[in-house]
């Protein structure tokens, strides 16, 4: 029974539409490469044929009837063929067919269940491609067990292995078959004959480079349609690695990582594509081994009670994840990629995947390094002699100031009364010498010991990766450091044929020795820290007096820096993370997973100022013990469906899932003062007279709970066009009761241009070219859900609204908040367009993209009238936008046998601006509706008023100015300085951030040089803040920066900094700012230079116990190129920053 094809003269037996497509494809083969040859005969179906002188057409019909095969042929093709006579019994069909076609100038190919008869063209025999089917089996190289769903690719087609590991594919002679799958090393086999082949695959130690973990699954890099960057940790510098986000600094275009403190394990500011939510926060969502960390805040806290002398302790919450355990990090940048994480994903998502065990011989790695840290130049303070000289000078100057004497400090004529009594006599000064250097006294050479052991192994059913990290840093400041132990066990257990159980388990403990640094607000007197104290304490004193007590400085409020070394200021941080996962492969295409997440972090902090520290604000001792914990629990279940149809022409990947998440936090602290003895420290708070008992407190943060459903559908057509659609529905207790649910959709499209035929002729040059674009929305749920409620509370524990009636302290309760039941998440809408390319056989790869990210319904406080009971209410209002370009390029500059040089460079730019503002908040007149979010406003300046002529020149605009005042620019020329002269001075955000990495290899030596930096952001002059001329001239002088001599004074009218005389004009400057101390900053930091030497095999010994070994030396933070005036363009620039270290590390990496 033949049916005539309507549009051609082909006949198709037993036509069905499913087969029709195959046929169409074969027609294409016939048309364009019409000369084929039959070669293989391995088909099992057997037929019997006994005919005499029948036509070929008739023979085909008989064979069709006896077998499952259809025959496809052209009648014209058969017209000049001889009739057939044959007699066979129970022979394989293809063998029969071969006999039939013998000498007929015809051949055939088999495609699935179709046999296509084609012409044999002898003349083209050498140039034709000859397709023939080959069968085989893929097995695990360790145990020979069949491997399922391995992708097998030939030059012309691809398929996957079935559950028994079998495959069948059409090949041509000499074709190279590629076998690949996630978790296995790719293997290639050259086809030489037609025999059944068995291919062994090795389990891969590393995920394949071209596979990227995305939310709830993975994708091939080449098939990504959204903005996703994946980093393998093997490409990162792991020397002294403390936290994963630090490692990412400068590595990903658009990922802005800023190290703002040099504290060991200090906090890091991370944002993706700019921070555009004024109140919602800008931290990306971290997903650790598939578990979204709903609350990723640090549990480290600054003790709250008593008087402030601990500065701020700021730790990175990711310190408790051992970076050495991490296999890969994926940064999801656009909303199409992040929408799968819905309401938590507006600031992007960082997926962290830890290493997994592999099947095979047990492998032990031991990496160790030791580092020495030296302090980069710090702010220089006066030595004793200079301190005394300048205290006298500035003391005399202060007298002029105190009495408003003309011409520098007022209009009063100096009558010579109240003469200045110099603080220090000439003898004192001549005897002073350099005195005591407090900064030197409190700093030291730091050291870091870092040891990592990992053991990796397993069999086909059980695979384990386990590791232990010990990190011990004695940081630059005395008594400052961190010790970390992190252990991990990642288990992968195959249960039966279709069920796998994974467990990622890690536990860490960090013991921090805290030294408070930085700016906790206030001054060095009312908010002292170690460094503030060391900078202000007079260099004329040594730590102890003759009686063995700690000395006071002239101003008793300056704590003796030595006193800090008597303090206890420690915190112990623990984190338990467990992610059990059950995966069931219901069919080759369908997989069900259930994953749980337990993430418990806690910190116990102990703080004790002993009596003998002699701190003026804690004369009888001060103790605080506190505990803070953050717990995340989650459970998710999802189905993945991956299927290729029609020989991979259509690929569908689908996801459907749901999850429940809960995060809680709590804190309690107990404060005590009035210790009769230092003996017990924090061990016995009960002996304190405890007059701060009222400040003991505890609190439970509101729990966050979320319920979610999510789905994704990804469709690839012909390996050219990719469409991806995602949606997530989140319900969250963070949102107001009228707005509890939100839906976050995203879609993306990619076109792999290089797979188009018209691209063939330039494929040699441009081997990869992909265009992609996406659009989607995600939410920022970093809001306080209780903003939906009106609340009444007792206020802050440290400064409660209390009052004493009689002898009883009463607690006050005030309305803390006006509720807005409609409050909800912020919505980020991102448009992304990009091009990925690979040139010269991927010697140059990279991407360019543009994004436009708009935050709508910004959570902001609506400002109610200042005279109303609660002057603000949480609202969703306003809109901001960040847009920019990202550029990344990886090049293999030189690749010879002995020498290679590779580079990768990335650059991300963004500008974050307002789109629309809260209409309830009247804009200040000088603020533009669409200004940059971090705009700086102020008056322009034009130097210092140095001469009476200068004063005369500004007599209309600055009538009360005195010498040494800043000269302000009357920008609108209206003859007066006021709000109308305030201008937008620029943007605090840098215009762009970049990273440049170069890797050189010569024989066994390799050298990596890594630079990162940014440019174009405004910053404050970093030196002026340390000049304290007024305090230096006080009756109780404080030490000051050596640059204080550059302040304009009556005795130094060439000073470059304005005098401390009041600038009366300032009272009319509502912005409070001016450009005198501002500058546009750029910097490039040489973050790491690493030189490594890999031991040649001949050194490893014949038995190969040691499989590989590498020695290295690493220089960290070698220097900065910058135009910044100050200590460091990036780190703390405020009062008393943590000193910045330069690090040299030596170490080795070994494998056994």
């Amino acid at each position: 029974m033949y049916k005539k094809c309507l549009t051609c003269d082909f006949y198709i037996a037993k036509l069905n539409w499913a087969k029709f497509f195959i046929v169409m494809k074969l027609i294409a083969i016939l048309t364009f490469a019409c000369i084929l040859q039959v070669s293989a005969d391995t088909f099992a179906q057997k037929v019997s044929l006994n005919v005499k002188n029948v036509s070929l057409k008739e023979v085909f019909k008989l064979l069709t009837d006896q077998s499952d095969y259809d025959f496809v042929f052209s009648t014209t093709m058969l017209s000049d063929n001889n009739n057939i006579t044959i007699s066979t019994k129970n022979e394989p069909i293809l063998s029969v067919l071969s006999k039939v076609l013998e000498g007929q100038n015809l051949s055939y190919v088999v495609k699935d269940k179709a046999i296509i008869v084609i012409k044999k063209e002898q003349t083209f025999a050498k140039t034709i491609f000859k397709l023939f089917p080959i069968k085989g089996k893929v097995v695990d190289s360790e145990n020979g067990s069949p491997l399922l769903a391995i992708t097998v690719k030939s030059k012309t087609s691809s398929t996957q292995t079935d559950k028994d590991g079998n495959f069948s594919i059409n090949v041509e002679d000499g074709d190279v078959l590629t076998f690949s799958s996630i978790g296995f090393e790719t293997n290639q086999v050259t086809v030489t004959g037609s025999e059944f082949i068995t291919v062994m695959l090795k389990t891969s130690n590393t995920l394949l480079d071209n596979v990227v973990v995305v939310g709830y699954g993975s994708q091939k890099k080449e098939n990504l349609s959204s903005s996703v960057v994946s980093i393998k940790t093997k490409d990162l510098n792991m020397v002294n690695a403390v936290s994963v986000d630090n490692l990412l600094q400068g590595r990903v275009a658009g990922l802005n990582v800023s190290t703002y403190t040099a504290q060991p394990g200090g906090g890091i500011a991370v944002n993706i594509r700019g921070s555009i939510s004024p109140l919602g926060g800008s931290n990306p969502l971290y997903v650790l081994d598939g578990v979204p960390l709903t609350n990723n805040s640090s549990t480290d806290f600054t003790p709250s009670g008593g008087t402030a002398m601990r500065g701020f302790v700021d730790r990175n919450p990711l310190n408790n994840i051992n970076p050495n355990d991490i296999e890969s990090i994926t940064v999801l940048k656009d909303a199409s990629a992040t929408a799968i994480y819905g309401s938590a994903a507006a600031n992007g998502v960082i997926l962290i995947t830890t290493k997994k065990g592999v099947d095979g011989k047990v492998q032990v790695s031991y990496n160790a390094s030791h580092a020495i840290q030296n302090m980069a130049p710090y702010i220089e303070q006066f030595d004793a002699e200079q301190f005394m000289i300048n205290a006298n000078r500035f003391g005399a100057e202060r007298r002029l100031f105190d009495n408003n004497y003309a011409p520098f400090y007022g209009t009063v004529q100096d009558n010579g009364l109240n003469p200045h009594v110099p603080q220090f006599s000439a003898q004192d000064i001549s005897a002073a010498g350099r005195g005591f250097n407090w900064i030197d006294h409190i700093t030291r050479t730091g050291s870091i010991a870092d040891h990592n052991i990992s053991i990796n192994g397993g069999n086909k059913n059980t695979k384990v990766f386990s590791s232990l990290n010990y990190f011990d840093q004695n940081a630059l400041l005395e008594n400052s450091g961190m010790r970390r132990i992190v252990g991990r066990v990642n288990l992968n257990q195959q249960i039966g044929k279709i069920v796998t159980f994974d467990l990622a388990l890690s536990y860490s403990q960090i013991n921090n020795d805290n030294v408070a640094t930085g700016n906790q607000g206030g001054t060095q007197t009312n908010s002292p820290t170690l460094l503030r104290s060391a900078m202000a304490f007079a260099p004329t004193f040594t730590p102890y007096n003759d009686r063995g007590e700690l000395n006071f400085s002239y101003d008793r409020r300056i704590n003796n820096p030595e006193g800090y070394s008597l303090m206890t200021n420690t915190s112990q941080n623990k984190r338990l993370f467990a992610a059990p996962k059950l995966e069931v492969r219901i069919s080759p295409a369908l997989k069900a997973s259930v994953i749980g997440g337990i993430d418990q972090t806690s910190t116990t902090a102990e703080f004790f100022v002993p009596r003998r520290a002699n701190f003026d604000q804690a004369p009888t001792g001060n103790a605080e013990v506190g505990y803070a914990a953050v717990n995340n629990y989650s459970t998710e279940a999802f189905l993945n469906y991956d299927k290729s149809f029609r020989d991979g022409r259509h690929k569908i990947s689908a996801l459907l899932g749901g999850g429940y998440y809960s995060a809680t936090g709590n804190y309690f602290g107990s404060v005590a003062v009035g210790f009769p003895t230092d003996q017990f420290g924090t061990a016995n708070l009960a002996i304190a007279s405890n007059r701060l008992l009222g400040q003991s407190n505890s609190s439970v943060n509101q729990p966050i709970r979320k319920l979610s459903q999510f789905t994704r559908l990804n469709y690839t057509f012909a390996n050219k066009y990719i469409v991806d659609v995602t949606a997530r529905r989140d319900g969250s207790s963070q949102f107001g009761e009228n707005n509890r649910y939100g839906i976050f959709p995203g879609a993306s499209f990619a076109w792999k241009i290089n797979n188009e035929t018209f691209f063939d002729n330039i494929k040699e040059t441009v081997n990869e070219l992909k265009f992609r674009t996406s659009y989607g929305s995600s939410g920022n749920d970093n809001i306080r859900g209780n903003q939906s409620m009106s609340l009444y509370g007792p206020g802050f524990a440290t400064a409660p609204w209390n009052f004493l009636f009689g002898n009883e302290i009463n607690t006050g309760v005030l309305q803390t908040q006006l509720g807005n039941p409609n409050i909800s998440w912020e919505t980020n809408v991102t448009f992304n367009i990009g091009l990925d390319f690979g040139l010269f056989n991927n010697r140059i790869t990279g991407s360019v993209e543009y994004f436009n990210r708009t935050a709508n319904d910004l959570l902001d406080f609506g400002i109610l009238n200042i005279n109303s009971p609660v002057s603000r209410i949480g609202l969703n209002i306003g809109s901001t936008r960040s847009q920019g370009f990202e550029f990344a390029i990886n090049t293999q500059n030189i690749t010879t046998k002995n020498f290679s040089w590779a580079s990768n460079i990335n650059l991300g730019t963004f500008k974050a601006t307002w789109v629309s503002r809260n209409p309830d908040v009247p804009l200040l007149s000088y603020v533009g509706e669409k200004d940059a979010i971090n705009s700086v406003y102020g008056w322009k300046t034009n130097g210092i008023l140095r001469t009476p002529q200068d004063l005369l020149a500004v007599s209309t605009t600055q009538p009360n100015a005195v010498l040494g005042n800043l000269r302000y620019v009357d920008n609108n020329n209206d003859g007066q300085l006021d709000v109308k002269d305030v201008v937008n001075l620029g943007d605090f955000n840098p215009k762009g951030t970049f990273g440049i990495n170069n890797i050189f290899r010569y024989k066994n030596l390799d050298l990596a040089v890594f630079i990162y930096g940014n440019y174009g952001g405004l910053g404050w002059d970093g030196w002026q803040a340390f000049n304290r001329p007024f305090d230096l001239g006080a009756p109780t002088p404080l030490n000051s920066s050596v640059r204080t001599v550059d302040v304009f004074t009556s005795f130094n009218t060439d000073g470059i900094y304005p005098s401390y005389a009041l600038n009366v004009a300032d009272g009319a400057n509502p912005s409070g700012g001016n450009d005198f101390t501002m500058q546009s900053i750029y910097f490039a930091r040489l973050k790491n230079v690493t030189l490594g030497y890999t031991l040649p095999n001949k050194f490893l010994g014949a038995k190969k116990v040691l499989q590989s070994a590498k020695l290295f030396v690493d220089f960290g933070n070698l220097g900065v190129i910058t135009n910044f005036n100050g200590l460091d363009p990036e780190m703390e620039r405020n009062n008393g920053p943590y000193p910045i270290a330069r690090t040299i590390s030596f170490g080795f990496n070994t494998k056994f």
Partner: protein
Amino acid sequence: MKTKFVYVLTLFFTLTACKKDLLVTEVKDQFTENNFLKTEADIKSALTPFYSLFGTDWGAADVATGNYIGSFNVALGGIDFITSKMTDDMFDVWKDPDLGSFAFGAATFNSNTQSVFFSRIQFVARATQLIDRLEKIEGVSDAVKNQYLGEMYCMRGWLLWILYDLYGPLNPILDASQLSNKEMQPRMTAEAYLAATEADLIKAIGLMPTVRYNGNLNNWGRVSKSTASMILLKLYVNTAKTPADWEKAKVIGTNLMGMGFSINNSYRNVFLEPANNEIIYAVPGNAGTFNWWFKLVLPSDAVIVNTITVRPGWGGMGMNWAFFDKYTPGDRRLETIASSYRRDNGGIRNRSNGLQYAIPMKYMRFVPTDQGFDWVMFRYADVLLYMAEITNELGSGAPNNTTIDYLKQVTDRANVTIPASALLSKQAFKDYVFEERAKELYFENGNRRQDMIRQGTFISNAIARGKPLATAKNLVFPIPANVIETSKGVLTQNNGYN
């Protein structure tokens, strides 16, 4: 197998989609609208923050905004500290150039920061809100209700008076129906504002059952009839323009004199004897509270001051020698002011070897480690001096004996003889009373600024001290520039600060 899993997953998704109550926002550490202000204890808690504004510790962060709200009575930043920088008595060691040189403008103070107390206008609205809720509260007796309502009226009146003193008439919300009105109202007229303040205080006097708490130490620290009367007296005296105004002042002053207060035998002991009969109102303090007074006034190397042993302080302020010289030798009040001290290195520091100011100890019992002590705010000597001033104003010529006697009770205790010249004319007596007020009430709650303004010497004296920027505008503070901007022009700036 397959179907089972699909079933389990379906069940899971269904569950996650349906459990709505899981998502209810929970707040565990605060009261909500539904459970607050139900009991007398709640009422006490709700009242306490208004008192807390007058505490002697630094202050508190406003629970709604996180902005720091400094206490009115914190030694280092309270009303007295701020205003004394602008008067003749204080030597500002730390220097606040803005205030001391009268160089401040509207942009100098910002309502979001500590500022100069402007943001306390919010507490007036909070008081209005609480009064409204107390009026409507059920389940407590009328006596209890009236007690707390009276206290709240007193607190609101007091806040209104302080704000008037610093800023002139503002636009506080006094009507509960206006609490959620988004439209800001313009400033009240001075007459209406003062009338409202007066009404609150009169209401408070009527509602509060207790005259004074000197004998009832469990409630020491609560406002009473006498407290409200004292505030009212200050309001009358400082705003009096006509004889009728002075008459009103006289009535309330006379009432106060009949409330059982008396002048203490010893000036020094007024500040040392707890709840003594001269004290009308004091902020209570004990080891559980803070007071930074000694830190403020004691030099950083002082160990003995006027025979009492102290621990060195931070030396933030002193008394100008010129002001110190107003006291005649033998004035008993000098017992509380030191002109020299023993340094921690053993030496003596005094006027002749570099001490630039006298030390205004006032409280002659050193309290270590910044613990609180009763902080005297209103006292009977102040009433007597006001009565001398009031009756002198109401008289037509030289003061009569009653008038002189008010003054004499104060001067006698100080061992000061009133010079005959002071009794010769109404003006001479007035001037003398002001001098006496300065010496008697030094560094007490900003009295000096009020007195100098009333006397008309606040600006002229500043200019004479070499502060040429002082002008009439400085009689009140500017409203912070950002408040003016955000009020969309409804709130107008004080004259001269535009």
